[in-house]
């Protein structure tokens, strides 16, 4: 099983020849650029403050015409660059990264970090402008994390005014998750096996084309694809025992959509139609051979249960259509109106087949059997309608009123037909079952807010939200452990308030809060009687120093007998950004956050059928810091050093620590190139599961080419 999980495409511990070749390439590049550095004058270090594009100080009236004349002369001077040449600006970072051996759990490292060694395209960011505007006016290209990294992204957008806008977004993401402690009932027996582990790769692509942007009539089409495939471990659950087995899984979702926007001066409408196709296949298997004892080794009536072979397969297909209609209108100078109608109806069909052999047990019949076949055909449909209307009315200059209404109605209906054949010693037994399921939600919300601009610097708001609805969940005929027929009502009154205070352009203070009282909710942990508060403050003390504070608080209580849920959380954060002399010497940015969470709820202890309180508590400290030092001119180069990182330390139900210090050195080597060297460390620890901790160093060298 572990071999299966380690069979990941990242080139860990391999490709030494390739690494050597890339090292040589990087060394050659350095060799080429270092002489260039000696020939070129020093350039400002990367990350220096961008050129001021804000309004410049106007010249004195007496000198303005003269200055204008000079500029006109400059403009008339012939450009050294032909005006028809495409203007390309941007940068590309590439290089090589090394990872040290993982000190501790490689599985955990790969679940959290998963960066490997090898040649990398760390990032690229280019903008192309075509002065002739032949095929496009502007094109942006962004990319990051290519070369075997777990998160590769690519983005391209191109546009031509009044003609089109084209966007491409592609991501290649790997998902590796295998922590021995996470889902391992066998841990106490010394077996390190996460029974819910995955090693998959997801490809997400999005392509959209908008025609005639900026016109009153804008058609658009788009295609999106989300594909995932890989391997993992899952438990095959069989009546009295569950057996960890390998699994393969894949799924594909294609989304097609198109529509048209009407953009008029006082009115806008969008009509969009779309549809999806979905397919998914999952296989669980165990080759005939050694018996799998499963998670329970306790004998049943003197017999030991096991699974000797398994082949289970899901074949799932789905499709949906959706309709979307949106409008906004500035009906009058004192009133805006908006609304939307959304409807979707996804459906699915599944065929599941399973064949298992071993010494298996059916507790409801108190019978042991040696093989079983299980077939299921099922289907589901989920019509879902949402309507939303709102308005803003401005009867007075300093007074605004907003009103919105939302209804969301969803009705999932499913049915399944299953047939099971078990083969005990006495001969085959067959059972069949028909089930119907229903999940209904009717959610409604109305909200009113009043805004009053007391002064140009102070805005107060107050409002009221009423939420109501009902939900039900049913499976017929009744039976089973978790599902039956349940129904719940939602009734919630919420008072809203807020203050925005900006006494000077340098200081901003925002406070917003909610106080709610409910008489019914869907779940024990739903927001019931709660108080929510958020405050933010930002102060720009000087042009080089900015301080910000953020505070959030939530207190939720459900005093209903039998629930008695009590939840408190708060989080405080502060950040500072200090960049004296516009970052010419150094820049520092840092933040600190403390969060605290406590959740208590009653539950029934199965062994004694008595009530007890489930308590969860967590206190966490988080800090980040980044210090950038411009080292000045050392000879002909002006290097820059960045150092910092982040830490997370929590105490409570699962004490955890996670450290990510780093340092990076930039050395300009030519007018257009800067070399960099970077070091990271990742350290992770769990107090209760120390075997899952790890520490790893990574180092990289590379080059940034800037144009």
């Amino acid at each position, binding site marked *: 099983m572990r071999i299966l999980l380690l069979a990941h495409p990242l080139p860990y511990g391999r490709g030494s020849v390739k690494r050597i070749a890339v090292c040589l390439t990087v060394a050659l590049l350095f060799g080429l650029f270092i002489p260039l550095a000696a020939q070129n004058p020093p350039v400002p270090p990367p990350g220096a403050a961008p050129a001021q*594009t804000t*309004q410049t*100080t*106007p010249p004195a009236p007496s000198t303005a015409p003269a200055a*204008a004349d000079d500029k006109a002369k400059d403009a008339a001077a012939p450009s050294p660059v032909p005006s028809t040449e495409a203007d390309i*600006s941007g940068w590309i970072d590439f290089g090589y990264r090394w990872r040290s051996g993982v000190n501790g759990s490689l599985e955990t490292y790969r679940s*959290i970090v998963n960066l490997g060694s090898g040649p990398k395209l760390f990032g690229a*960011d280019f903008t192309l*402008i075509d002065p002739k505007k032949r095929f496009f006016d502007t094109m942006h290209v*962004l990319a990051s994390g290519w070369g075997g990294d777990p998160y590769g992204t690519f*983005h391209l957008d191109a546009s031509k005014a009044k003609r089109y806008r084209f966007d491409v977004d592609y991501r290649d993401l790997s998902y590796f998750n295998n922590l021995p402690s996470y*889902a391992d*009932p066998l841990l106490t027996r010394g077996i390190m096996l996460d029974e819910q582990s995955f090693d998959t790769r997801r490809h997400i692509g999005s392509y959209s084309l908008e025609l005639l942007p*900026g016109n009153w009539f804008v058609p658009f089409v788009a295609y999106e694809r*989300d594909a995932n495939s890989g391997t993992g471990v899952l*438990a*095959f659950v069989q009546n009295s025992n569950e057996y960890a087995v390998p699994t393969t899984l894949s799924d594909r*979702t294609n989304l097609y*959509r198109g529509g048209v926007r009407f953009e008029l*001066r006082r009115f806008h409408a969008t009509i969009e139609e779309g549809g999806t196709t979905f397919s998914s296949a999952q296989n669980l298997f165990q080759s005939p051979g050694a018996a799998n004892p499963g998670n*329970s080794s306790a004998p049943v009536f003197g017999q030991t249960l096991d699974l000797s072979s398994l082949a289970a397969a899901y074949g799932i297909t*789905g499709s949906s259509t*959706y309709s979307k209609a949106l409008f*906004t209108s*500035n009906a009058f100078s004192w009133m805006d109106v*908006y609304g939307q109608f959304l409807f979707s109806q996804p459906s699915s069909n*599944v065929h599941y087949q399973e064949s298992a052999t071993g010494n298996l047990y059916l507790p409801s019949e108190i019978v042991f059997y040696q093989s079983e076949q299980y077939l*299921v055909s*099922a289907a*589901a449909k989920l019509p879902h309608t*949402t309507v*939303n209307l*709102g308005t803003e009315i401005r009867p007075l200059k300093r007074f605004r009123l*907003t009103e919105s209404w*939302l209804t969301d109605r969803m009705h999932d209906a*499913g049915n399944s037909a299953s047939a099971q054949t078990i083969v005990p010693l006495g001969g085959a037994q067959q059972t069949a079952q028909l089930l119907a*399921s229903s*999940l209904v*939600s009717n959610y409604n919300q109305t909200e009113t807010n009043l805004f009053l601009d007391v002064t140009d*610097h102070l805005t107060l708001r107050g409002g009221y939200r009423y939420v109501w609805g009902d939900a039900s*969940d049913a*499976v017929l005929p009744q039976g089973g452990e*978790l599902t039956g027929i*349940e129904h719940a009502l939602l009734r919630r009154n919420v008072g809203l308030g807020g203050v*925005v205070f900006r006494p000077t352009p340098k200081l901003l203070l925002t406070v917003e809060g909610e106080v709610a009282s409910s008489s019914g909710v*869907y*779940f*024990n*942990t739903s927001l019931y009687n709660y108080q929510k508060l958020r405050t933010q403050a930002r102060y720009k003390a000087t042009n080089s120093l900015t301080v910000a504070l953020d505070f959030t608080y939530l207190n939720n209580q459900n005093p*209903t007998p039998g*629930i008695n849920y009590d939840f408190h959380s708060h989080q405080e*954060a502060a950040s500072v950004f200090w960049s004296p002399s516009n970052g010419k010497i150094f820049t520092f940015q840092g933040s600190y956050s403390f969060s605290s969470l406590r959740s208590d709820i*009653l*539950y029934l202890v199965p062994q004694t059928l008595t009530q007890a309180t489930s308590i969860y508590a967590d206190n966490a400290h*988080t800090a980040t810091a980044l210090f950038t030092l411009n080292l000045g001119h050392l000879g002909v180069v002006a290097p820059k050093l960045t150092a910092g990182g982040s830490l997370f330390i*929590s105490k409570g139900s*699962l004490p*955890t620590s*996670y450290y990510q210090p780093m340092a990076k050195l930039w050395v300009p080597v030519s007018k257009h190139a800067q070399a960099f060297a970077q070091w990271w460390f990742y350290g*992770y620890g769990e107090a209760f599961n120390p075997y899952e901790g790890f520490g790893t160093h990574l180092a990289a060298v590379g080059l940034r080419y800037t144009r």
Partner: protein
Amino acid sequence: MPSIRCMRSIRGVLLSALFVRAALGQDAAPAPPASPYVGSEACGVCHEDIAKAFAKTPHHVADGTDKKRGFDGKACESCHGPGAKHAGSADAADIRNPGKLTAAAVDKICLTCHLNQPTHIGRLGSSHAKDQVGCTTCHTIHATGSEVLVVRKTEAVNKLCEGCHLTVAAQFQQPFHHKLPEGAMSCVDCHNPHGSMRLAMTQSFGANEPECLNCHGDKRGPFTFEHGPVRFEGCSTCHAAHGSANPRMLDRPVVQQVCLECHANLPNLNTKGTIGVVPPAFHDLLSPRYQNCTVCHQKIHGSYVDRNLLK
């Protein structure tokens, strides 16, 4: 007759006067009312850098085409207001600087053109609108390159949001998180900063399905046997989407604590009871076998084939 002569005399005097004035020069003629606008070209004479940069931005299109709003050739003044007085005095006090206006005033300028656009849907209900977060808080009108109008690179987007949402940024420093710090995602992949009808200004998949399905298509269903919270209250019922110490980014680090808070085994006899408490299960929670509920109830997001979400 004398009156006719009189009229002729007057006409003759007036015509003579006109000829004299014409002979002296046109300056003497009464001038039409001066336009308060000077046009973008005039702005570029002094603000050359900005004008050159602005020519590379999408707003520049107003200079060539926006006749219906009267901004053709006046792109600068479409935001800064009439510039004739400022052009004459070169005094910063004589021109509107949106960078120094209140958020509501800035929004009013932007919405002159952008009010009736798709991004306006949900704007009024958004916390950004409620808390007076103006358009220029995120949008930089004069910037060029890949940051024209608004940053696009994922790290830059996240940095921008982090400027205000400090507590959220801290949550991403937890070991298991959506890969924003790594640059694989940005805040706007999940949130619509212009507002949405969904909680926390989240995006949607298709028309009205949760934004999480944009990437987690395998969780979409519809399932024959649904897990109610997923549909009723969304993924955040169980998941801490920004970050968690739990490998599946659960609200609580231990799976059974997440499950127990709803499936507390205490049937609520209240007629307005909550969902998920009946019928109670009697697993021995002290046994390692039952401490991670999802080992068996592995199709926790919904099952196509099993009512107990076992397969």
